């Protein structure tokens, strides 16, 4: 299926689809914009808020032109007041609107954790289901060029720990559009974490409405020897690793988690029952991270099938360094995945 493939940019996409045989390629950033435009056209309750959403850059192009199309009343530039603005968006959601709040960086989410964790996430349960907060929050992971400790964090596991929140991390343009649509239609607070390095990635994105279900992972590549459960940008690295390992006689099954909370543990255990081996690949840190949850789900659900101890690939236990020399050591990728899997398979 064309939408399970993704290409680093339009050139790669067009080389793969020379005639474009009815397959429309769209970059990840444009898929987000298109989903937003379609949602705003369909539903007058939908509006966009955030710092710089109406400026010429438009949050790396993902909100570009919305203010011209829908007016500044539905594309609201905000002050630098993350907690307050999050609460304002949550209140509007509580009272009938469908706001999409955009953060240029995941790192600004910590400023709004009170409204997210103590308020938006709790409203349904705390009031016995009599109210809910259908709020969508977008946040972008930065990486590279010395972004350093405060501008490149992957904080999904903090959010995934909170009942009442949903957290999705689309890895392809198709999913970016479909999950954003699903998030806005969901009656709960949903956080979408996007990776800046995916923004140029191009893949098939159909015009018009469709949703990708929240809570469902997907097999991006089938294989019998090892399960790789990856998320966001690391899905791409995992697919590269799987391709390389194929040449070395190892067949990897690559699962794109897509939703971090609630996690599709069924698909993970099903795959591990087949392969007996599991590697998780996360954009975040290891301790109490998403990888720990992935491994726990396999241990709980496929204990008897495991042929080797699962491996977690994640960031080193340190904040992001600025120096290019350290940054180069900081991020794992294809190489680390290949190494870990070869070691794991050979050990048996």
């Amino acid at each position: 299926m064309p939408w399970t493939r993704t290409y680093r940019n339009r050139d790669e996409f067009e080389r793969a689809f020379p005639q474009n045989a009815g397959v429309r390629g769209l970059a990840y950033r444009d898929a987000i914009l298109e989903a937003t435009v379609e949602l705003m056209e369909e539903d007058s309750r939908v509006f966009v808020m955030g710092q710089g959403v109406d400026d010429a850059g438009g949050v790396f192009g993902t909100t570009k032109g919305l203010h011209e199309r829908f007016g500044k009343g539905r594309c609201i530039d905000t002050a630098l007041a993350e907690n307050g603005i999050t609460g304002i968006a949550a209140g509007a959601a509580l009272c009938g609107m469908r706001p999409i709040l955009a953060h240029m960086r995941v790192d600004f989410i910590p400023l709004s954790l009170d409204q997210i964790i103590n308020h938006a996430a709790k409203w349904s349960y705390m009031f016995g289901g009599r109210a809910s907060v259908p709020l969508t929050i977008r946040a972008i992971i930065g990486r590279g060029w010395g972004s350093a400790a405060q501008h490149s964090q992957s904080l999904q596991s903090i959010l995934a720990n909170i009942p009442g929140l949903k957290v999705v991390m689309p890895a392809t343009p198709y999913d970016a559009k479909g999950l954003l649509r699903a998030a806005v239609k969901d009656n709960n607070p949903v956080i979408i974490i996007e990776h800046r390095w995916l923004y140029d990635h191009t893949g098939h994105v159909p015009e018009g409405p469709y949703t990708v279900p929240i809570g469902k992972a997907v097999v991006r590549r089938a294989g019998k020897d090892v399960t790789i459960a990856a998320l966001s940008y690391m899905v791409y690295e995992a697919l590269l690793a799987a391709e390389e390992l194929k040449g070395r006689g190892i067949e990897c099954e690559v699962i794109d988690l897509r939703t971090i909370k609630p996690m599709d543990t069924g698909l993970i255990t099903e795959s591990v029952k087949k392969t007996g081996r599991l590697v998780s690949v996360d954009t975040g840190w290891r301790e109490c991270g998403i990888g720990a949850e992935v491994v726990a789900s396999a241990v709980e659900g496929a204990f008897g099938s495991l042929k080797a101890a699962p491996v977690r690939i994640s960031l080193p236990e340190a904040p992001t360094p600025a120096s290019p020399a350290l940054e180069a050591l900081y991020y794992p990728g294809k190489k680390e995945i290949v190494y870990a899997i070869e070691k794991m398979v050979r050990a048996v």
Partner: protein
Amino acid sequence: MEDLLQKIPEETLKNIYSTMLRIRMFEEKIVELYPEQEMRCPVHLCIGQEAVPAGVCANLHAMDYVFSNHRGHGHCIAKGSGFKPLMAELYGKSTGCSGGKGGSMHLIDTENGVMGTSAIVGGGIPMGVGAALASSMRGEERVTVIFFGDGAYDEGVFHESFNFASLKKLPVVFVCENNFYATNSPQSARQPVCRISESARAFNAPGVCVDGNDAAAVYRASREAVERARKGGGPTLIEAATYRWKGHVGPEEDFEKGFRDREELIHWKGRCPINAFAERLAASDIISRRDMEGLARGIEKELDEAVAYAKKSPYPAEHDLLSDVYADNG
């Protein structure tokens, strides 16, 4: 002597001029070298805003604390940081002021009272108030200056921190560098009353708005604020109106990108804080044009040395990736 410069000692005027020039030339060196792509970190330049750090820090001692933000090169230079550790930090080298781990947005110089710059907007403000709390608890005659932007004024944490500082009469001066933009958002799109200094009244503290391109005016306003703070009179909110010439981040101008008008930039370039000050100093025979040129040559040489030092310094070693995550308990 010109009226406006009155009561400012000649030595101080010279220092302020020299500091502004040091900041401008440091930033211009970055503009010159950034295209080499060896400084691999985002840089937020303060060209056009030099009068604020220079005028404020001329009132401070080395022991006084400074807190600053993502646009912090000028604050460090004005507080006495040397070019070498700053430049080396921009190059990601182990000899940098943060060992290469911070980059342009995360500078520190504890010996000169710069306690670290935060790139989370507003993040340094409560830490600065905490520094003032610490010195007041210890009975020190130390003042803390917090530099922040008009964007940081949007943040709730500014109001929370200013309230506490005023309540406890802490020795701290809040210096808002109002350059009228937070990235590309104009102040008027974020604030209903574009007069930040007036909010001080709500906290029963003095607030003043000064021409942030007039180093003498900045100096005078901050002298009063620093003296008041040192004597136990509590915080002051200084709003210094100024303008950044470059884009929010990076070495280029941004009007072509549709963020701001070219006319606005031209207007503010015509109000260059350094040229204006130089003219006044020359007209009052405080520094001759020749001495100014000599000063610039000296700074240029110092900068070239700093760049050479940064370039030949080693990168952090592999084991540094995991060092410093926790402080030693030794």
